[in-house]
């Protein structure tokens, strides 16, 4: 199994979710993160004190799927999250050794 971890722009979450559902992905886990990268954040100024952070709000999506589906998950995510602008984000794929559904104790791909 694979863990597909994508860092995307917040307003793309809905599009990605729909794209993944279309692939038959039944679940995913989402968190709010901050990204540093090429895309620079707005300069904030408080009473004249400037903070030029390069910290931008992003959404991290984690999806575990079986190995076959992984490339299509990556592709679908890449297309749905793409706005063509800097800061669109990244997708990383990691290996997952085991998966368990807590409710039933099922393991492996049936747990997803």
């Amino acid at each position, binding site marked *: 199994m694979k863990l597909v971890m994508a860092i995307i722009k917040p*307003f793309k979450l*809905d599009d990605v979710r729909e794209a993944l559902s279309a692939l038959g992905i039944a679940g995913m886990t989402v968190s709010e993160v901050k990204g540093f990268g090429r895309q620079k*954040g*707005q*300069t*904030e*100024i*408080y009473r004249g004190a400037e903070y030029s952070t390069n910290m931008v709000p992003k959404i991290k999506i984690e999806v575990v799927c079986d190995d076959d589906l992984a490339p299509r998950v990556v592709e679908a995510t890449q297309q749905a999250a793409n706005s063509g602008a800097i800061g669109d984000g990244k997708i990383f794929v990691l290996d997952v050794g085991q998966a368990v559904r807590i409710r039933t104790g099922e393991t492996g791909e049936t747990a997803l």
Partner: protein
Amino acid sequence: MTVSKKLCGAAGAMAASLFAAAPAWAGPIKAPTVEQMAGMVDKGDVAWMLISAALVLMMSIPGLALFYGGLVRSKNMLSVLMQVFMIVSVAGLVWVSWGYSLAFTSTNTPFPAIVGGLDKIFLANVSSSTFAATFSNNIYLPELVFVVFQMTFAMITPALIVGAFAERVKFSALIVFVVVWLTLIYFPMAHMVWYWAGPDFLADAPTDAGLLWGWGALDFAGGTVVHINAGIAGLVGCLIIGKRVGYPKEPMPPHSLVMTMIGASLLWVGWFGFNAGSNLESNAVTGVAFINTMVATCAAAVSWALVEQFHHGKPSLLGAVTGAVAGLVAITPAAGLGAPMTSIVLGFVVSPICYLFVASIKGKLGYDDSLDVFGVHCIGGIVGAIATGIVASPALGGQGVFDYTVFPAGFDAASYSISTQVVTQIKAVLFTLVFSGVGSAIIFFVIDKTIGLRPSVDAEQEGLDLSSHGERAYNY
């Protein structure tokens, strides 16, 4: 503020007793001099009007700002707060510069029934030694007290508008709009509805009054001037500016209903200054306006919650506070004119009507009135304005109207006709809708074509806090 004839028995009784306790004059004085007016000021009235002005300011900041701000997404929170805060500030300056003169004088103007002249521009001829009339013969307020009380109304009215196109307006364009709109729409409306010569002077100058005042339209505290006026301007604005990027597909839930609830509560508390303060005195009628405001709001909050309970099984806090605001809006024109029990009926009626607009008609017509300025303020204002014609009737326990064309002004219960008054009220509503609707549309259109009303899509998507103001609301 008010109307061709007004008030009730209690006011009469009270005035009588006041005269009794004031040996400096024998009976009411027709057209008193400024020196005489100085002796016709009651410190209790001054205290009440000043605290009322402070309460109405509190309605805008932080009240309205939070009520609106809680409903937007967090990335636009500061933009809403900033819009309200700066509109208040700019409107205050515009008011003393030319607003008060345009609204509350009738000399040296080509159309004295439509708009005032410039005799009091920059508060010329207004000082701590000039006085403003109340609704009672021989009772006056220091004029600056009246100026600042009225100022707070000119502050909140344009601030109400911004809810209709929150999350997608260019800040600089908005401020330009506000200055122009106050000048061309609000000051004339205020003049037409509220300007009159005063009870000691009207008998001798029966035509010295604003247009709608002359029609006999009843508007105790600003249903037309404030709520219908702002509500229709908001609708026009949101149509011209267009929908938010992502609306209605993307979910845009309120980012903090806690702030919205604080805002609604402070609106309720402050509204007593607005409604009961509009009596300009601290007497029994002030008490009437106060209790009517209280119970109509209670009823409307309960009513909205009940509608939600029936419609989808769960009453929501947002529903309850929205209902409360609808009730406050609806009772505004009727506050000092109805009775507590009819005010409750009014409160119960207004919520389902506003709910229909907010939860159904808006969706069907597809306009994006972000915070329901039209659905709550305009519709609620219309319901209230028309209902005022009914609840003011002495036959229903209402306060009826005073006849100011005689001196001293007298109570005139016999002549009250609900149907005649309702027709007058409808006329006033239609006039306001057309005057403000068309006028506002022109102003929005011109600004859109010149400065531009809308920020770029990127700026909107990033959030106006960062893109327009370079700040972030929360850094937990």
